[in-house]
């Protein structure tokens, strides 16, 4: 009995994620934000931030490429 109890305790060490966790509506999530469509606003905003950084990196890449070409001439 004790052994069984210890085995079941061992099994509970890690809590697995089940399908129920996706359906669980008692936990508050950003459903309101999604239904209002506002999560997409956030996606756009963060997308612009990433886009800006990437454009900057690409331009720096080009500038350095240009300098390298001039040096190797």
């Amino acid at each position: 009995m004790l052994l069984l109890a210890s085995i079941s305790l061992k099994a509970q060490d890690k809590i697995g994620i089940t399908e129920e966790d996706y359906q669980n509506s008692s936990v508050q999530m950003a459903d309101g934000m999604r239904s209002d469509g506002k999560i997409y606003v956030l996606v756009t905003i963060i997308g612009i931030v990433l886009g800006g950084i990437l454009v900057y990196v690409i331009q720096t890449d080009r500038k350095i490429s240009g300098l390298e070409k001039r040096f190797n001439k």
Partner: protein
Amino acid sequence: MKTYWWKILAILLLAYTIVAGLLIEVPRLPILNETIRALFFHVTMWFGMLLMLMVSVYYGVKHLRTGELRYDDLAVEFTNTAILFGVVGISTGMIWAKFTWGDYWTNDPKLNASAIGLLMYFAYLVLRNSLTDVYQRAKISAVYSIFAFAAFIPLIFILPRLTDSLHPGNGGNPGFNAYDMDSKLRTVFYPAIIGWTLLGAWISTLRVRYRRLERKLEDHLINQ
């Protein structure tokens, strides 16, 4: 711009990370709520940092074997970007901790260990800048970074597991399944790691090229 396909890959993966990372269905877990999505942005910083530090150690060893400065350039700049990722990782972690664990800084072993790790790498920068001879600087910093990396891994991966930690998968031995992630989260998590790491590699290589141009210019001025 010799090969640029991986830069395009980085852009695509990062775009996917942000769109899918914010929009996919995630497990609805108490306390975590939507912050579980920080997995794609906070945890990936540390993975990216570690991968870049590995690259840095590789080039550090290569420098020690050959004594060539061009390997030192790579080693330094990858460490620099890794430190940037580490700082971003620790700041985002603090915000996440505030809203899930209740405080910006808990005396969690993993938090303290990663802070020590970052301080070790700050010391690396100080050490480099205190040496004036370029060859001496390259050699000493390569040796230091090998030791720092060898201390960093047990600090953040092994020691927190020997005690209790708030971080998932720490305390006890989790084996390979460190995070209790299901396959849905993994579909964004792994691409996110690759995407962020490639962006880090991109920034590092840009700075390597800048460094080499600068050295060429100096040589040019001296030989005039």
